[in-house]
């Protein structure tokens, strides 16, 4: 029998689906029903003409579980294709965060200074608050948000990761 690999890996999986009612519930139900992890899940329509949406999921598990996840996703009727971006080769992963910080005086100046270093943009400001917009890898966002915590962080909203493979091939090719 082929040996079983028990190491836990993290994967980014992209799924192209028909944008029909219930499709997201099907995907999420699959993960919860079978006890798979979801670290992040994003979805949006990407082809209005064909009514197709793209779902990006970050999950983790043993190689055997990860193969199961892909096979189970692929077997859903409205799924057009499943691509394991972590395996397919290099890919670009991005996440966007909106971060609200309130405060006065030094703290306020410090938050702006750090935002500058991280190339976060100010998208809203008042005398006592800033809203920063930042795009980048999940790790970079985490670091930025951690730094903002002592400086008056009150709200964070994150999109979750979107990803796409590098190079000239598409998801279905």
């Amino acid at each position: 029998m082929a040996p079983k690999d028990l190491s836990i890996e993290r994967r980014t999986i992209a799924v192209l689906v028909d944008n029909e009612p219930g499709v997201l519930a099907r995907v999420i139900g699959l993960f919860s029903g079978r006890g798979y992890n979801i670290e992040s899940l994003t979805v949006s329509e990407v082809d209005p003409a064909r009514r197709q949406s793209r779902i990006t999921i970050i999950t983790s598990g043993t190689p055997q579980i990860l193969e199961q996840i892909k096979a189970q996703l692929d077997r859903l009727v409205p799924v057009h294709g499943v691509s394991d971006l972590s395996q397919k080769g290099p890919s670009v992963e991005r996440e966007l965060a909106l971060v609200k910080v309130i405060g006065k005086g030094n703290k306020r100046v410090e938050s702006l200074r750090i935002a500058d270093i991280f190339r976060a943009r100010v998208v809203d400001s008042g005398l006592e608050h800033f809203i920063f917009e930042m795009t980048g890898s999940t790790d970079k966002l985490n670091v930025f948000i951690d730094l903002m915590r002592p400086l008056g962080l009150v709200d964070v909203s994150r999109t979750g990761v979107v990803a796409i493979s590098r190079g000239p091939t598409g998801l279905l090719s």
Partner: protein
Amino acid sequence: MPAKKMTGSQMVLKALSDQGVDVIFGYPGGAVLPIYDALHQQNALRHILVRHEQAAVHAAEGYARSTGKVGVVLVTSGPGATNAVTGLTDALMDSIPVVCLTGQVPTHLIGNDAFQEADTTGITRPCTKHNYLVKSIEDLPRVMHEAFYVARTGRPGPVVVDLPKDVLQAKGDAYFGPDQVKHSSYRPRTKPDPKAIEKAIEMIAKAKRPIIYSGGGVINSGDKASRLLTRFTRTLGAPCTSTLMGLGAYPASDPQFLGMLGMHGTYEANLAMYNCDVMINVGARFDDRVTGRLDEFSPNSTKIHIDIDPSSINKNVMVDLPIVGDVSAVLDALLKAWTKGEHSLSQRALKEWWKAIEAWRGRDCLSFRSVDSVIKPQHAIKRLYELTKDRETFISTEVGQHQMWAAQYYKFEKPRHWMTSGGLGTMGYGLPAAYGAQVAHPDALVIDIAGEASIMMNIQELSTVMQYGLPVKVFIINNQWMGMVRQWQELLHGGRYSQSYTASLPDFVKLAEAFGALGLRASKPAELDDLIMEMIDSPRPVVFDCQVDQTENCFPMIPSGAAHYEMLLGPDDKAVKPVSEEGMVLV
């Protein structure tokens, strides 16, 4: 000329007849009254009125399993749909093609907690292969045809189509037939990868101790698959075992057949699985009832797995070579490649292998001691088999010991003659499944081998068989106990028989009579044959109360979580046993 306007209900019926449906199993209610009205005005479709919606789905499963066609169910919204859920889950677990039409409140009321509203697509999402809510009559023809296509193809399964009442009453002129429906994302693979076939042939050709482990996928694939399985097995000269769901795909009387494997499988089948060097899984899914303890499951074999569903592969057991495809197509390709390459197995090795197998077979693990004073349940099923084997007989079962004894002692020679709830293990499955098969095969002998506890779960269906004159025979192995539960309590819970005795059982003969059926009772071995013959010869539905030894246990048994060689062969075996010598012989 513009097409004639049709109501949604008429479209539903038209789509059913275009899909070749001749019978539906259903139960009316407010939300589906428009369909019942349309049914009333036509003669092409037969409707069988069940007594509980769960039974409607099981009946459709019996119909589907015994014909290879899609079974069709029609139920109302709310409680009609929720009652169907057990049946749908059963069909999903056993890969049975069913289309279930559910009524729904009108679209403008959805989400308002309207009378008899339930979130049917939400509730049935995890227990169907796919489901649809039809929100407009324009979508209706496409969805109907897609539903049949999805239910029938690939790995078959149940599909729900939820039909709001206003859609059923709306008028449209856009009906079209099945041939115009193509699915854009759903395209199951049926043809195997030629490279995988080549590789498989290489692996098989090296085998010294091969085994074929066949399953329900062979039945799903159609009668041709069974013929090819038989040819393939005989060409190789290898032993063949089958799961509960695959029984009948390979003729049971053939000397190359080792009987069922798994928890209540034969000694020879399980030890051959443990000791084989090349395993060819044909349409089976390495279920835990079959594998026992995973780290001890056939530890030294190279495994080839033929399955149409990629998610079945490497789910429980890691295999060396997956072949994704339809069983018929794969076996056909394998046979062609084998013959073309003029391959053959080492006859010397094969002879040694069969010698070991014959020694295991010599243990005669299904033997039991008959006595004159009381009917042994195994004896009852053996006699039932002997007295019915020369007829066209279909067998269904409920769930429990009687189900396992039926699998062990009834020898199935042909596919599609055996209907049992394997994956979900649903008590109450057998009677509706039996009459579903009887509807499809009116002249055949159809017997539900039942337990007295299970039969109570859908006993109301006797009323259905009476209404349609379906001469189904219910053969109750009556041991007064939930036997399978009692057996586990005896072996694993220190004999503390908590709630497993069925007090206040009905008098089954009188019960049969109350429904208008024939009731028969046997309690002594001497009267058994005559009474079975009376049952068979009766043109009426029969309830046969076969009173058997109440303490009998079902053996062989691999306690769950144990390995194949840790099998208990009879009442004198102890549960935790050191590895038996036989199991180690070839390791």
